[in-house]
């Protein structure tokens, strides 16, 4: 594309045709403030609603001010971004927003991370000159995963773009008109009654406190303080490469050892690793894959493809959006639920305590895990396998609340036996990781040979949909990978409509980049490069592990020998597998 030249605040800048004024300005370090705009380049998340009008600029020859985020840069444009007319307009628009925004920053979950608060601060707003009687009042909508407090909505529409365009879930859209306009579900239904998958990506992109996680930190504190309870904690793989960001570390810094110490200091009785359960998942899911592959090779063509089932938002998606494919996901529970199930049976036996005495807490990069833990089928006599779920952000907050700086802590190791894991387990945290871990095991079990090379580079990357073949010693296993539910939809539709590429196994993660981009992770504030750095860190952790194949995890071997018997055996089916139900929702 040909380049065009324009002048911004006296600086001449050359950009490719099709660039926006905002992009051109950033190229010459003119940092125009934005609010509704969001562009996560490596995913499909581009919000160009141009609705907030914070980023307006003056363009010579134009009657009114132009939103720089949505105005195409044209050759010869002369733009001013900081005249009194522009600054006054921006401040007035900001004051209009503030005039209809609750002034409860002291108790707002987003305080300190709120982009509206940040703007007010940078604009030096010391009093709000625009006042009005009317203040938006909407019903607070609370689900197990998230809280919608639409009084704080600024109508940036990022959540809507994320839900509809990126995730293609379609749970959110603007309703009502004028001052009453707000983003909500169809018929203003509570989110829990809609097709919402609980992926929480709306929370990940919300600039204000309108969409936040359903915080469980105080419940965890209460459990820890209860002398009657044995509190067990598990931490998901993606948490260790992200939580450092909350303590000033560069994205991609791994802080596993410090995190373990922090958890122990917080008072958890046993600090375990979800990675242990990830290895267990591979044994169950890998065995199921091989069983179904065997049937497939014997001529039962509908035995494949198999879909991974680790991601709870993904499970919700298929239950409500693809009823015709409800039979193809693996029946294996997710690592979180396998952990809870084993902790409250196998480990409770070891401790010789009833399951009711044990509290299982998960630290997850995810908000859908909160919902998953609450699913009725994951409980025994009303006692959930996983009792409480904290997001990465919530754990960071809890550590800070307990007067610790993560980076000052000594490193320490997970407790045994449920703290032992392999490199295959840690890559569960990134797109492509679950299927790579499965293939590492499936290959060796299927062929009886040792893997010539552990790293399956062909399964890695950041493309939304990837398809690659893995040579299983003669049989080419075709693997499809998608991250982001919109990409998953495209892949699933392909499979449903004839499966032309003969895909045998599919991994789906609902969030951009996989769990590293989960909705419970530290806010990326529009910087998509953070996800790639977390991904690199995950693969680095894998490379540094002494054991990198799940079936070689000695603690897992012991679990099967002492307790479960064999993968996909009777007890496994009882404890580690589940079933899915079609959900007819709007």
């Amino acid at each position, binding site marked *: 594309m040909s380049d065009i030249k324009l002048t911004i605040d006296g600086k001449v800048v050359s950009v490719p045709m099709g660039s926006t004024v905002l992009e051109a300005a950033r190229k010459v370090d003119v940092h125009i403030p934005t609010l509704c705009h969001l562009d996560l380049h490596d995913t499909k998340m581009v919000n160009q609603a141009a*609705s907030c009008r914070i980023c307006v600029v003056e363009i010579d020859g134009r009657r009114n001010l132009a939103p720089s985020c949505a105005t195409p840069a044209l050759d010869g444009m002369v733009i001013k971004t900081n005249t009194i007319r522009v600054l006054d*307009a921006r401040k*007035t*628009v900001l004051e209009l927003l503030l005039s209809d925004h609750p002034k409860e920053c002291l108790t707002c979950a987003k305080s300190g991370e709120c982009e509206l608060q940040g703007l007010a601060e940078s604009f030096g707003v010391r009093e709000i*000159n625009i006042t*009005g009687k009317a203040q938006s009042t909407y019903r607070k909508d609370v689900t197990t995963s998230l809280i919608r407090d639409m009084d704080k909505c600024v109508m940036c529409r990022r959540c809507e773009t994320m839900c509809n365009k990126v995730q293609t879930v379609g749970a959110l859209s*603007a309703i009502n*008109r004028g*001052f009453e306009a707000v983003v909500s579900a169809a018929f203003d239904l509570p989110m829990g009654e809609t097709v919402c998958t609980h992926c929480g990506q709306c929370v990940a992109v919300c600039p204000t406190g309108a969409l936040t996680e359903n915080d469980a930190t105080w419940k965890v504190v209460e459990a820890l303080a209860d002398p009657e309870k044995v509190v067990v904690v598990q931490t998901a793989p993606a948490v260790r490469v992200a939580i450092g960001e909350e303590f000033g570390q560069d994205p991609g810094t791994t802080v596993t050892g410090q995190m373990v110490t922090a958890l122990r200091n917080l008072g958890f009785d046993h600090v375990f690793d979800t990675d242990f359960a990830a290895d267990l998942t591979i044994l169950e899911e890998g065995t199921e894959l091989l069983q179904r592959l065997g049937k497939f090779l014997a001529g039962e063509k509908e035995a494949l493809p198999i879909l991974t089932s680790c991601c709870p938002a993904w499970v919700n998606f298929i239950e409500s959006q693809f009823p015709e494919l409800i039979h193809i996901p693996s029946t294996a529970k997710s690592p979180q639920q396998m952990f809870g199930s084993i902790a409250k049976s196998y480990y409770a036996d070891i401790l010789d305590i009833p399951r009711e005495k044990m509290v299982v807490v998960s630290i997850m990069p995810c908000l859908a895990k909160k919902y998953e833990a609450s699913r009725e089928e994951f409980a025994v006599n009303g006692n959930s396998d996983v009792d409480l779920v904290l997001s990465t952000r919530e754990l960071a907050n809890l550590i800070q609340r307990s007067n610790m700086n993560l980076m000052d802590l000594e490193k320490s190791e997970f407790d045994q036996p449920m703290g032992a894991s392999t490199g295959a387990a840690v890559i569960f945290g990134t797109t492509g990781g679950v299927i790579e871990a499965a293939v590492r095991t499936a290959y060796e079990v299927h062929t009886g040979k040792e893997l010539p090379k552990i790293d399956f580079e062909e399964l890695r990357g950041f493309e939304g949909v990837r398809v690659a073949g893995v040579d299983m010693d003669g049989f080419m296993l075709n693997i499809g990978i998608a991250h982001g539910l919109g990409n998953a939809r495209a892949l699933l539709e392909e499979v449903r409509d004839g499966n032309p590429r003969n895909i045998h196994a599919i991994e789906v993660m609902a969030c951009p980049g996989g769990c590293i981009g989960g909705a419970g992770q530290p806010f990326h504030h529009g910087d998509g490069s953070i996800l790639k750095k977390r991904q690199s860190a995950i693969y680095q952790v894998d490379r540094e592990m002494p054991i990198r194949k799940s079936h070689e995890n000695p603690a897992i071997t012991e679990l099967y020998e002492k307790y479960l018997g064999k993968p996909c055996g009777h007890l496994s089916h009882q404890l580690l597998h589940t079933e899915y139900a079609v959900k007819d929702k709007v």
Partner: protein
Amino acid sequence: MANYNTHVLVCGGTGCISAESDLIIENIEKQLVEEGMADSVQVLKTGCFGFCEKGPIVKILPDNTFYVQVTPDDATELVKEHIVKGRKVERLLFTDPETKEKVSDSKNMDFYKKQLRIALRNCGIIDPDKIEDYIARDGYSALGKVLTEMTQDELIDIMKASGLRGRGGGGFPTGLKWNFAKGYASDQKYVICNADEGDPGAFMDRSILEGDPHSIVEAMAINGYAIGATIGKVYIRAEYPLAIKRLEKAIDDAREYGLLGEDIMGTGFNFDIDLTYGAGAFVCGEETALIHSMEGERGEPTTKPPFPAESGYWGKPTNVNNVETFANVPVIILKGADWFASIGSEKSKGTKVFALAGKINNVGLIEVPMGTTLREVIYDIGGGIKDGKKFKSVQTGGPSGGCLTAKDLDTPIDYDNLIAKGSMMGSGGMIVMDEDDCMVSVAKFYLQFTEEESCGKCTPCRVGTKRLSELLELITEGKGEMKHLDELKHLSRVIKDTALCGLGQTAPNPVLSTMEAFADEYLAHIKDGKCPAGQCKNLLEYKVLEDKCIGCTACARVCPVNCISGEVKKLHVIDQSACIKCGACMDKCKFDAIIKQ
């Protein structure tokens, strides 16, 4: 076949139908049968005559007798007297308010004298349900001419040379718009007719669609040829059932006659039209919002560029024109660009249809050449202000427009003059106000309208219009402060500068124009706590005059909140703290003893 020598035209516009014009037709036809004249007299249900104030209208040809305020009971007399005996029914003729003389030929009525009906050329003349009527008035010959004699560029050149500008409000040159849409290559293009007329009190487009639907069908096909589109869509308000019915009939008939569909007139040109109903959102008149609504999305605008000419309906090049704009197209083709350009003012060519409303004698639909003065419209055509009151202001351009005052009366009406005066042409709403209208309340009315009709997408419109109307509310409630005037001006300026679409950008116009022209009225509300027009209830006081009250107790008995006390034959007193300012006492008092101040 019948050979008619007399034609009875009965208005079938929405207004006259609601005043039983259907029954008038039925009764006339019955009477004609009785008189044995059914074969020589044709009764036609036409579109709107425009003179809605005096509806239902019945016009009899060939002598052009114009009967007003006809009722179904008058039908027998009309047939017996006028048609059978050739005697005019004097009592049903229009009375000139000046001379008090009866006027029988509409050509001699002031209401029509200064009008020039181009867009409305067939309204009130043909039966809109009969394609033959339209064809008899040269209908579809423009389409034939275009398809057989012109290239796309020749056609667009004619449109450019005619000087026709968009009648929906923006005033963008139509030929240029068509040229843009033609300029983008695509496998599919669309023509959209914007029939989402939404200004309060406006019914220009409705009347055209009800009275002459084929002119729109023909013009859309011509537009399709010009830009290379084969599909036309009409986005029409679901609240216009009659317009929808007649337009659908017109489309069906045109299709049957080979004037729509495949291979039109054997020229190889394909074009067809269907309808999409709007749900009554004002903002859907904005073309990007309209397109989103048609696509099944929420009807809210998006930033331009890209303009619909580049990326419109389903991302394809699309030309959107308003009904009245389209109505001008076939005539321009037939009579030529020069003819059209000879009408009107320097930069605004042709005519404009206005919906005259408010405190004016002749409420109705009029069409005048561009450049006609407001005075001519209001006094000559409109017959002046109702009840002999004083003219105060005229609001043009709907909620996006502004208020003009007596000093603007001699301003020739065209796009540029109105903008220069702080108002705009808009789609043609014209609301006349007299001395009893409070201009702060007028501004508040329009702001409340835009506030409600805002889609809520951009901050300045969603929150800004709310805050503007709250400020105006304070002033009309007597709680206004001088600083509120500065706040109104400042906020108005920022909203104009930053709102996303035309609705928001023009929303402050009613505030700014009234603040400019009626500054003293704002000051009276704030500084003196008075509403000079006596409209703002909170600033009013009803008072019993001591020297006039005879103590009849009528006022006390009618007061709904019992706040008037006084003994029989003694002075009555109103308790101001309890008074709800309903005015019932003042209406009731036979002695003019109660005043409002």
